[in-house]
């Protein structure tokens, strides 16, 4: 059981939790993740570690309430406990001094980008964070990003903040061949990562993507998280979650992540009926 110390709504769908986990707080590195089970009935889901404080004995995670498990998690309050939490899992992100580094995040991936951007800057890089949100209301952690990166640029679908369009369009506009990045790191929805990786490949910029496949144990036992990278099958939980973005088979990943779509919709309907969210008769 891990107690929730702080709960903060970032948007109606995205919630930040600071949770007691002293051992993980001591050992975590940017790019690593947790397996979380909000209640004793819940699924095990992977969530990226957004921050951690060895002094406070806490770690921070950000969850977007889209399926039943994430919605159940998002409804937990301060002083309540998360049933199971294990980590830190996966290999840390590749952080080194490259000069100029571009970090790209979309949706809740922006939160996951934060520790990576900060680590690149601490390694002496000039860090640009290009982030995407649906509209100004969906922008999260802007202040934290500004303290982590040298340059923060937002794109919104409706143009209500910053660039109008998606992050990949913004990347194109931002790109300056003379002064381009030497390394890029992308995290977010699969279509975004695929498009961003396609663009950095055109630029010839080595790029890492932090992948988000379905997982159960998170220790290499089940193989549910397997992804094809450069024609080879890799287990994202132990060999990733970060891989060479130019080698990842994103189509396959997108398919595999939809494997349980129907089950999730059913679970969610049942859940929302029970808690009366969608007003359907029980």
């Amino acid at each position, binding site marked *: 059981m891990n107690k929730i110390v702080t709960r903060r709504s970032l948007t109606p769908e995205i919630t930040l939790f600071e949770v007691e986990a002293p051992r993980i707080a001591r050992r975590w590195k940017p790019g690593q993740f947790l397996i979380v089970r909000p209640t004793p009935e819940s699924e095990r889901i992977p969530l990226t570690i957004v921050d951690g404080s060895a002094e406070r004995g806490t770690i921070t995670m950000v969850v977007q309430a889209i399926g039943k498990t994430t919605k159940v998690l998002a409804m937990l309050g301060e002083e309540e406990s998360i049933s199971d939490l294990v*980590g830190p899992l996966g290999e840390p992100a590749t952080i080194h001094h490259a000069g100029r580094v571009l970090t790209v995040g979309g949706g809740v991936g922006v939160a996951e980008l934060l520790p990576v951007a900060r680590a690149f800057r601490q390694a002496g890089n000039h860090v640009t964070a290009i982030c995407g949100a649906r509209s100004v209301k969906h922008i999260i952690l802007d202040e934290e990003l500004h303290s982590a990166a040298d340059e923060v640029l937002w794109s919104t679908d409706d143009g209500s903040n910053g660039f109008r369009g998606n992050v990949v369009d913004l990347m194109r506009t931002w790109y300056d061949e003379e002064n381009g990045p030497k390394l890029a790191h992308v995290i977010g929805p699969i279509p975004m990562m695929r498009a961003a990786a396609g663009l950095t490949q055109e630029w010839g910029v080595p790029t890492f993507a932090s992948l988000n496949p379905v997982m159960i*144990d998170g220790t290499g*036992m089940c193989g549910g998280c397997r992804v094809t990278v450069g024609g080879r099958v890799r287990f994202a939980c132990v060999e990733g979650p970060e891989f060479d973005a130019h080698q990842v088979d994103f189509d*396959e990943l997108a398919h*595999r992540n*939809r494997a349980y779509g129907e089950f999730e919709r059913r679970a969610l309907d049942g859940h929302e009926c029970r808690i009366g969210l969608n007003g359907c008769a029980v």
Partner: protein
Amino acid sequence: MGETRPKRNPKAPRQELPVLDPKLRATTPREVALGFTTEQAGIEALRCLNCKDAPCVDACPLHIDIKSFIYRMVSGDYHGAFEKISEQSPFPGVCGRVCQHELFCEDACLLGRKLDPVAIGSLERFAADYHRQFASDGHWKLPKPTGPRVALVGSGPASLIAAFDLVRKNYRVTIFEALHELGGVLAYGIPPFRLPREILNAEIERLKEMGVEFETNFIVGRTATVQELFDEGFEAIFIGTGAGLPWMLNIPGENLIGVYTANEFLTRINLMRAYEEGADTPVRVGKRTVVIGGGNSAMDAARWAKRLGSETTILFRRGRKELRARLEEIEHAEEEGIHFSFLAAPVRLFGDENGCVREMECIRMELGEPDSSGRPAPVPVPGSEYRIPVDTVVAAIGQAPNPTLQRATPQLITNRGKIVVTETGQTNLPMVFAGGDVVRGGSTVILAMRDGRAAAEAIHQALSSKQEPADTTLEVRQ
């Protein structure tokens, strides 16, 4: 004169273990084997010859005093039988169900030379079930242990028996488990229709009563390193992390939706209870399931698929004789209507536009010369390819040791992922021991327990010899 003991009757037929009707059990997660009736237990116990140098006791990897426990059962002293087993093992409920008795005690039974051997496994199970039903809780309590601290990594069979041995010798024992539930492969791998969870949990509970501590959600090598455990005061560490790295088919299409490793399939169902209506964790079981492999995991996966309503086939590249599962599981699978397709192997998988598996191409095999496993090597028959429709594929073709701890402990010597140990389970690192599948690759519950017991003894030797100087001084003072 007291009552006379009933007369030995070795010629009575070996009692058959009653089982649920195959039609009923294909629809339920309820336990298949029902266990002996009291009458059957009495008849079976009387079949035992009570041999002078009972070979069954030597053959048992845990050296349970089989002869004596059966002797007590003869007079109806089932609690006494249970106590007798408990001298060596606190897991008769588990072992009575999952141990391969036919390879050990029952293989050694002298009665088996002329007649059927005594059904030792079923008697062990009877003693356990009888005791659990009628005994009160809380009688396992030991004085709080005060000795050196020992960390056992992984809560599977190897660590569980090591904990039992060590806590009885006054060691302060902590078991670290990566998952949220205890039992390792007993919890995520073995289906409840073979090992009901209340039996597993009751036997683990007994260790808790004895003073063994458990920490779930703790991955040694991730949450803390081996060195950190030593720094925190543990004086010896046993690694029993099991075989948690599944082998893949390495054929085109294996990443299609609906293709599972046995580990994932069984974990979703056994551990995450995907079989329960309304469970949060889903599993995709379509109309037609093909399970590839011939071991216990293959039987378990196939029997689950059948229970979840799928037409199920086990595809095995050798013949029935070469199956590696317990005989009882093979027979149960056959009774339940699982189809076996021998001498065939998958070549490739085909999917639909959504990336879901739809068809499997197979090739016929024939048996050639024995390979390194001693079994005849399967050889593909050229031109014999054929296709079958399929919605769910489970690859149950074996696994390598879980690499997590090894990766975080690079100084630990391994051979193809398996931790290298001496006979007593000592690794190349001081005070670090290992046993079970992390040493053997894929093996059995009972051999893991044998390793755990050997390592516990080695840990005791190492720690008590370390303490010896202090003890001697005390003696001199007296």
